[in-house]
């Protein structure tokens, strides 16, 4: 069976391929001036944050390891995987370092909330099976909130 980390990597690889094709196509056909390039890379960064949230949710729905440390490592994989894309975004001057750090912290917070809900349920109500749906429910809710209020956090991150 696939480990939590391997699942995180697989999910990241799955979203990165269409993202790379989309970026290449855009770069091939748009005019290369900062007026067009910077919005493109800002869009790339906000899309990455949304995809990372989606990956964290999918990861919580298919939990294979009982150890929370494995969950944490899976989430770290999801956060670190798109760093080369993020580095490119930063080099084009589309986003500053503060925005990048804030964005990654936001994703870390979503991941941490998911893990915390899992630890809480494991420790507090280990015997109650129906309560085991709470951690995935928390992750799904967070993903829905991220999507629904995307204009809000994008505005906050100046994206």
């Amino acid at each position, binding site marked *: 069976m696939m*480990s939590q*980390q*391997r699942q995180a*990597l*697989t999910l*990241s*690889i799955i979203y*990165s*391929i269409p993202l*790379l094709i989309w*970026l*290449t196509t855009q*770069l*091939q056909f748009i005019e*290369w*001036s*900062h*007026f067009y*390039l*910077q919005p493109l890379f800002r869009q790339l960064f906000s899309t990455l944050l949304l995809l990372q949230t989606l990956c964290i949710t999918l990861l919580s729905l298919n939990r294979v390891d009982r150890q929370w440390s494995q969950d944490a*490592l899976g989430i*770290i*994989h999801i956060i*670190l*995987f*798109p*760093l*080369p*894309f*993020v*580095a*490119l975004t*930063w*080099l*084009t*001057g589309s986003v500053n370092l503060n925005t990048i750090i804030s964005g990654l912290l936001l994703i870390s917070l979503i991941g941490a909330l998911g893990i915390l809900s899992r630890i809480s349920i494991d420790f507090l109500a280990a015997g109650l099976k129906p309560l085991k749906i709470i951690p995935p429910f928390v992750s799904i809710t967070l993903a829905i909130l991220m999507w629904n209020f995307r204009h809000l956090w994008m505005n906050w991150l100046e994206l």
Partner: protein
Amino acid sequence: MELKTGLDGHAVDGQTSEIEIRLLSTSVISGQLEINDAFGHTLIPVKLSERVEKTFWQAVTVEQNKSIIVRWIPEHGDIIEKQLLVDHSQTALTIISRSIPLKLTLDKNPPSVAITPVILSTQNLPHTPQAYAGIEAFITAPQTLSSLSKDQYLALSDYLSSCNILLLSTVEQPLLKRLKDFSGCSGRFIQSYETLEQIPQILATLKGRRSAQTPSADEMTLAGQKQFQQQMLSSIVLYLTGYILFIILLTWFIKKTQYQLLIPLIVAGAGILAWSGEGSQQLISWVEAESGDNHVINSSLLFLGGNRSGDNSISLNTTSRLSSGMKQAQQPQINYQQNLTSRVLTVKSQLLSPQTFKLTSISTQSLPFELKIQQDLPKIITFEDSIADKALLLWRGQTYDIPSLTPGTSWQPDETMGKSAVSPAEKLLLSRLAFDAPAILMPFTPNYSGVISSNLQHTGWLVIRHQPEWL
């Protein structure tokens, strides 16, 4: 410190004008003059001994709702700051010498063509070639020309070399001939008039006959930047694809996936290292001249950075006209050197977005070909050996390879040998040519481009146009 705007406070929006900065020292002073205009930030080092008056004429770029701020920053002491505002015009200006009472005539009989007159005394005529950027015609008396200062004379020579219009009140033929001899386009745009009422008509005729200006920054970008984009796109795609494939391979083969946490960090770090620092410097030159003329107009596009993210610096000659090639992400800083004959342009550029500047200069150069029309066919006479390898004749929407010719020999194209334009430069020139007007296009690196750099990639074309048959 005293400030005064050139052209009597008039300027064309987005064009260069000039300002006069007068410094009077009461003791020995040294410091910097800082000029902030619509283009950027210019620093001029100044050192003056006691009780000395020094006047600088500095080119500035003017934009609506943006004032020009000049600061005197002494090494010791208080900073002096002053602001200047100019009257903006959306249309090109016509300079009229104060001795010519044309304004009354124009008021009485409004001309059919729009003329935006600026009436100037001799001492207010431009002192820098850049100040002529927004001028479309100059109407004066021969006596005014004889009382110009050296700077004013040099600026006017530059203006006339670029095939600009000069109208003179009744002038002796030998003087008119001398003026035409040192002007561009064989002096066709220098004319004399007898009565003031003739002026609007002469101006309308001359304006209509002016050939197209040098290509715009956008057109030149298309002609030369495609290769840069392809190289950068390939490197980015290879970088990201390589990274994803590497992760796929490691995920497949390595059991302990936690070690893979380091890979994105390493790859991102490598990307930042590779794409940070001083970027490339690329110059695309488009040099145009008329057959039989010695003046060549060199219009170049300077690309700084783009292949890396970081600060870029380049030394430029002060005689070339520098303007923004496109809307800049960041305004440049220009540091004049102590001798005021060169300046260092510094700007920060980001990955994939080079900072673009347009450089325009006039120089004297003998042309390798002469282009004539004989029996309705273009005729090329060569003056130099082994230069015709890649030269092309462009005529009636077709291109013709010019064969290698020995000096003094001539060649006429066979109309059946015409080919379609292939390269961006050929397409650009054809789009700028009248259907029947021939022109020669050849790869060319000008001796003088105004850029002093060993790290410069230079691509250029020389265009020799056929001289229109009207005098």
